């Protein structure tokens, strides 16, 4: 693999730029990605999770309709992880607002972090995120019976009162990097670092990889004429791309004025 070190606008080394392409034509809305994410990342559950406004799901599947009546109605699912916005030069909407530097933009991977032990729960980042990708721990996490045994040591469980979000399964990157280092390699192969949702997706609708690497699948897919991103016009510069052959779905990905043409 060719080693690519791009100089970012602020002089940061951009080694990788991890991102996702989600094929909405293939996505069946089955929800496996949500649960794969929860079980991978030690996200707890409560007895009643039906109030979706206080229910943590790093990966959440939104349901969108074309707004038409029977029988012309159409439905599409939008799986929504954290977009790991790059903004302009790494200024994601949430990063610069955090008063305690509990979240940052990693220029080497393009991943927006969240450090639970630093966060004190002011929720300013949640107000900043238009995707609702950030979740607050309203309750103490409880794992009933022996569920505590199923906790992964790779991801630190969160205490009540802090904000959490999708990390692109960054611990898997760390794992892959350890493995590569142990074998004397510096570069991580595409298949070595995949997020839990990508791996689980039974429809292979989620593709993950380095958006800067021409050999990765995402590099090509993001250039598809059917590709779009959510709320691109806000300037969030997200790293999650969506594909859909249905034009109403592509239009549903962003806001447009009446009569304005969409992509």
């Amino acid at each position, binding site marked *: 693999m060719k080693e690519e070190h791009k100089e970012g606008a602020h002089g940061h080394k951009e080694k990788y730029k991890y991102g996702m392409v989600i*094929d909405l*034509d*293939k996505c*069946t*809305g*089955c*929800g*496996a990605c949500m*649960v*794969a994410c*929860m*079980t*991978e990342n*030690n996200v707890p*559950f409560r*007895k*009643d*999770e*039906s*109030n*979706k406004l206080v*229910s943590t*799901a790093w990966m959440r*599947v939104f*349901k969108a*309709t074309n707004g*038409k*009546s*029977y*029988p012309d*109605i*159409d*439905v*599409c*699912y939008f799986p929504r992880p954290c977009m790991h916005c790059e903004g302009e030069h790494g200024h994601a909407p949430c990063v610069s607002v955090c008063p305690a530097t509990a979240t940052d933009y990693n220029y080497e991977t393009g991943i927006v972090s969240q450090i639970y*032990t*630093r966060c004190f729960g002011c929720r300013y980042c949640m107000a900043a995120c238009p995707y609702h990708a950030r979740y607050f721990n309203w309750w*103490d*996490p*409880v794992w*009933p*019976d*022996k*569920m*505590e*045994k*199923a*906790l*992964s*040591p790779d991801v630190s*469980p969160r*205490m*009540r009162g802090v904000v959490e979000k999708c990390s692109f399964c960054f611990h898997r990157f760390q794992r892959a990097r350890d493995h590569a280092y142990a074998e004397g390699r510096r570069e991580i192969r595409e298949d070595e670092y995949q997020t*839990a949702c990508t*791996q*689980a*997706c*039974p*429809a*292979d609708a989620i593709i993950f990889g380095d958006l800067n690497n021409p050999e990765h699948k995402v590099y090509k897919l993001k250039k598809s004429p059917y590709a779009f991103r959510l709320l691109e016009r806000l300037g969030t510069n997200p790293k999650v791309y969506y594909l859909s052959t249905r034009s109403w779905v592509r239009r549903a990905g962003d806001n447009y004025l009446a009569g304005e043409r969409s992509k």
Partner: protein
Amino acid sequence: MSLGRRGFLQFCLGAGAGITFSPLPWKLMDDISIWSQTFRGIPIEVPVPPVGEVNIEKSVCTLCPGGCGISVRKIKNRAVKIEGAEGHPINDGGICILGVAGLYQLYGGARVKGPLKRAGNRGEGKWEEISWSAAISEISKKLSQIRRNGSAHTVACISGKDRGTVPQLFKRLLTAYGSPNFISMPSSEDTERLGLKLMQGEDASVGYDLENARYILSFGSGLIDGWGSPVRVFRANSAWREEAVKGLAKVVQIEPRLSNTAAKADRWVPIAPGTEAALALGFAHVIIKERRYNKNFVMNHCFGFEDWTDNSGKVHKGLKRMVLKDYSPDVVSEITGISVSKIVALAREFARAKRPLAVCGRGKGSTPEGLQEFMAIYALNTLVGNINKTGGVRALPEVRTTAWPGVAQDAIAKRGMNQPRFDRAGTKAFPVTESLFNQLSGLMNTGKGAYTLSALLVYGANPYYTAHDKAAVAEALDSIPFIVSFSSHMDETAQHADFILPSHTNLERYEDVPTPAGLNVPIIGLSRPVVDPEYDTKHVGDTVIALGKSIDGIADSFVWDDYESLLKETMGGKWDTLIGEGYWKDAGYSPAAWSSGFKTPSGKFEFFATGLYRAGIRSHNDNDYLPRYKPVVLEGDPGSYPLVLIPIESTRLADGAVANPPYLTKTVADTVLKNNDIFVEVNPKTAAAYGLSEGAVAMLKTPTGEVKVRTHMYEGVRPGVVAIPTGLGHSAYDDYLSGKGVNANEVIGTVEDPISGLDIAWGSRASLVGII
């Protein structure tokens, strides 16, 4: 100012200066900062998961019959994650929502932690802990006694499935014991196997070559809502989507509601509920009339297409005559609510398509379809000649394993086995059917059974929850004086048992997994113990062997030391492959050629099911032997029940014997479940007609029962239809599951297929009345 005061001040000043230049405040600040970061809550402390060596164990998931390969990530002895096994022929790395949540089955609530004996009244929840040896000896004493009394045939077993070594062990137990009453829970596979036996003469399941099909005509099958082996179908669907972009594939979903399958399909055909067979025959009409069928196949390898004459010289009606006469697009349009032009266009498309495939089995396929309905849909595949072809259908044989030594039946056993089955399967009433769970409640509650059942063993099934007309089933089963459950979890059925002999969960035991429904190649999977048993449970196979050894007079049939050696012996030469790969696939399998493919007396594919006649079903109407649409008469009069209720089956809610883990409930939308209220979907037009608004509380009444629901308006439901989600409304298990919503089976009754006797209720008549 006094000296003392000034001195004190100076002392303080000095102390202040000293403290500042000592580490005390700074170190304290730092420590408090660390403490506040790692402060993990009072009184609930957030756990720190211990680290350790990672082990990956391969196994096969048995939470549904899908047979996906899984790889379980372990940290030392803890299983921390279930993932799809890369390279597995069924799921190749993918995993469904239930599989990935599977650790809840192991570590979560409601596990039965050891053998239990009922202490209070039935269903009261009072139990006495009992040792395994005591439990087995008490149960075998009871069963020995029944046997001695000459009532061996009154012992029944309800099993979730009938294929695989564990169900076969139960069957063997009954055979040696002297009871014909091995009953497996029904599914659409039952009808399909029956259909194949009649039309192709084979004891086999239908294999759908979805991966290679390019025009998929789905008659209500929830292809991406959990039908068949779910991950495998998802993967096929993704392949269709890739081809569809290039214009090379098309999926048409025929269903009254815009399900996920319908939404992802290229075309949704909203049909009147329950009229799929009519539409299939309408398509057949167009195909036959326009001579678009595969002439070679139909003329040379089919029987009963044209009229035929029997040995007595009587002329019988063929499919062609019947379809052309009875199912013109006009008639079908009237029945199905689909326009004539659409019927004609779809029929032409299907017939013209490269590798077309018609699929049946509504929703997840948990309710059987009518036999003639299956024949009608399957006939479409026949007409286009895709039987045993790439992208078509095939009769998939069972993987051959080493046969067990014959059952040593004594006189009691032989006498018992000669008794008719309680459920009337295989009797004169329903000669072609093997097992009829749905007949139980009717026969028992009316006292019309040939005899009364005195004991019941339940494994891998939860009839108190999953059966239609839940109340009637509960009443019937409650009347059996002795029930033994082998469940790992405190499900509704275990709750009503007298003994619970908890079995290991899927991650704690060996088990073979037979070819899942609908798959296109014969395969066998091996589920393996991934972790040591968490509780004092036992492999169900070992329990059955132990029972067999201790019930008087049948021990000779149970010669194995334990289940593992039995399994190894049964798998024979395949064992090493199973241990190594986790599955054994019949690599050399290919469907038979047309000339040798049919085991019917005619050696041909039979549109006209002569097998029914041979089995003793006599009718003067030839239509009774042919694919046909016979309207299902739902209970209740349309006046008081103006709406039609259909179930919504979704991957996000497990509605079978394996209950929904809380992770799944968490993903369910608040328009399905809010607090403890279930939502039914209705078209806004229907809602307006009944004065219901979004979220309104209403009474959903059917002839079977009535439940309180809330309404969710959804444009994707046909007007006049109410759709209710399945998989909610448990009354057992733990607080994370029970009391949430309503069990759809409380309001869906049973409808008997006239030929097979299976319950084919795809819905119910219903009314929806708002409560203010």
